[in-house]
């Protein structure tokens, strides 16, 4: 099996999905001859041409709407939005139409589309290029929100997303695009949506994270094991919506402690939803207050300060030590 980075794994999944299903289309700005600004669609246009790989005009809301029309007609459009800061222009189309087309027509029309977009900071990009909007999308009924944290995960989850009958926001952690490397099996196997992935089992504390923060969370867990003999369980949420709360709650019932890590701002971040569900269903198992290690309620800083904004392994480890020391 070849070692692939995350962007190559995305490319491989797109190739597989397009080969398997002639209704799968790729569209977006620069996705054709240029292969996407991150090269996620590299080579697809050469393989399939203009009829299945569509370079679009620069119109994020419009091409989201076009994808809805295509999906209602039985295609499975995979739309690339170059950066998640530009996906805000798509929210009206996503919220008012994509997410509710099935409901509004009682299943007469459906919207099996995937909106792919890079997410998060850590690549020293210009402003508006490092946003983490997952909670906004997760708030919308009728949508599914998926964020992989590894190349193999990206491959399997993207295949599942493309095959899913409902609209999906698929957020790809930008800083893992080239930094994460995995052996990726191109076996066409999807990873089921709506299930958390337990990456490390542990007895003392449950760490929950997703996307680009999973790596730092695992690093924190490893440091805690070595330096402090704290045995942390690490859960990658993978699908924020629908949330597999059972896996998180079962874990917290065993460990009694929960630390949620995300890059997005604290207030109304998706960590709040996880904390609320745990507080509701595992309150009596909790031995310490739930900790959230997150970005700040500020604008995502310009890149010179982004490393201070984004949770780092040490900040995560400190929160874990605090929760373990609580009595």
């Amino acid at each position, binding site marked *: 099996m070849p070692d692939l980075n995350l962007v190559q794994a995305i490319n491989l999944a797109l190739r597989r999905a397009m080969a398997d299903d002639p209704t799968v289309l790729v569209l977006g700005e620069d996705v054709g001859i240029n292969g996407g600004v991150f090269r996620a669609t590299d080579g697809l246009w050469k393989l399939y041409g203009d009829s299945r790989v569509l370079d679009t005009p620069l119109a994020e809301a419009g091409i989201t709407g*076009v994808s*809805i029309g295509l999906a*209602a007609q039985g295609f499975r459009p995979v739309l690339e939005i170059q950066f998640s800061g530009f996906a805000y222009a798509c929210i009206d189309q996503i919220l008012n139409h994509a997410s509710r087309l099935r409901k509004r027509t009682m299943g007469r029309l459906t919207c099996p589309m995937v909106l792919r977009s890079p997410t998060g900071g850590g690549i020293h990009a210009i402003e508006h290029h490092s946003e983490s909007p997952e909670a906004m999308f997760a708030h919308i009924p009728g949508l599914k929100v998926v964020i992989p944290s590894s190349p193999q995960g990206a491959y399997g989850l993207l295949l599942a997303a493309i095959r899913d009958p409902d609209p999906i926001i698929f957020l790809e952690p930008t800083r893992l695009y080239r930094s994460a490397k995995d052996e990726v099996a191109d076996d066409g196997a999807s990873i089921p949506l709506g299930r958390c992935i337990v990456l490390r089992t542990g007895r003392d504390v449950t760490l929950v994270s997703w996307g680009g923060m999973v790596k730092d969370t695992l690093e924190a867990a490893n440091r805690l094991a070595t330096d402090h003999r704290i045995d942390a369980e690490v859960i990658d949420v993978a699908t924020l919506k629908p949330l597999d709360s059972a896996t998180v709650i079962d874990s917290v019932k065993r460990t009694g402690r929960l630390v949620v890590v995300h890059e997005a701002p604290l207030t109304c971040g998706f960590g709040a939803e996880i904390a609320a569900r745990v507080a509701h269903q595992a309150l009596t198992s909790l031995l310490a207050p739930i900790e959230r290690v997150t970005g700040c309620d500020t604008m995502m800083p310009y890149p010179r300060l982004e490393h201070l904004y984004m949770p780092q392994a040490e900040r995560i480890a400190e929160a874990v030590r605090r929760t373990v020391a609580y009595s």
Partner: protein
Amino acid sequence: MDSPYRVLGPDGRAIGALPTFAKDVDELTKLYRAMVLTRTFDTKAIALQRTGRLGTYASSLGQEAVSVGVAAAMQLSDVLLPSFREHGAQLWRGVTLEELLLYWGGDERGNAFTGPREDFPNCVPVGSHAPHAVGVALAFRLRNEARAAVCIFGDGATSKGDVAEALNLAGVWKAPVVFVVNNNRWAISIPVAKQTAAPTLAQKAFAAGIPGSQVDGNDVIAVRATLERALERARAGAGPSMIEALTYRLSDHTTADDASRYRSDEDVSKHWAEEPILRLRSYLFALRAWDKEREEALLLSCGQDVERAAAAYLDSELQPAAAMFEHTYAELPTDLVEQQTGAVSYLRGL
């Protein structure tokens, strides 16, 4: 731009060459019936709303020729993406009176159309359906199908980015779509003069490289003929176009609106002289293809159809609470099933 295309003058006299279909009296009476049915429905819908038995309703009074003319030009295999005021087009295409009443009465079953299964439901966020029409049209092109999408929106929608983006996208892709601007001169209280500095709305197509033209929207013959040409062009692969149909909103914006706050009765009554049903009736009378007896019989039959549909709507049972959850996803996720079960058992306990 040429002056708006028109076949019948406001007094119902032919002032231009008749298109082929209009030489067939049966075709004209079909259009006439459809407009009268639309208005009968409209009157009933307002009466139901005023008596607390229908939700807020957007009247199509005075605009029947746009709706019916557009739909009459379409093939059933084309796809309609309407705004929320095109009851006439929906009825022509096979949405039932009862479905319309269910929708406006606040019941999702009104959008489950048993007739035109691929047609989109009403678009409420103004103009946001324009890019969907490009997507539908692109699907036809990609599958090499000789079909077209028709997207109807109002004058206000032409100020929106969605419409500008859709026009541009349609132009680039030569998508088989026809955009219809139902220019009823008012976007709630905003007249067209406050909407745009452009002398016409049709010309907004030109910037996207697609043809735009105006038609007298109170002349159902002209509307149908214009749309037929635009649709043939689209289906033949020659690309999109935009038609601005000039009509007038004789009613309030919706039953929640009071138009007397922003326009005078004199303004409105001027436009009654140009309304589309009277115009075609005058023409048919002059041809001796219509008379008082036929008119009375038609009104009676439309009234009976509408009353039957209203009775069925008023008799329809509410959906159960569980229906709120159904169709949110193809398969309800576990946490939503829990919410559904919780809601159902809570409500049962009340």
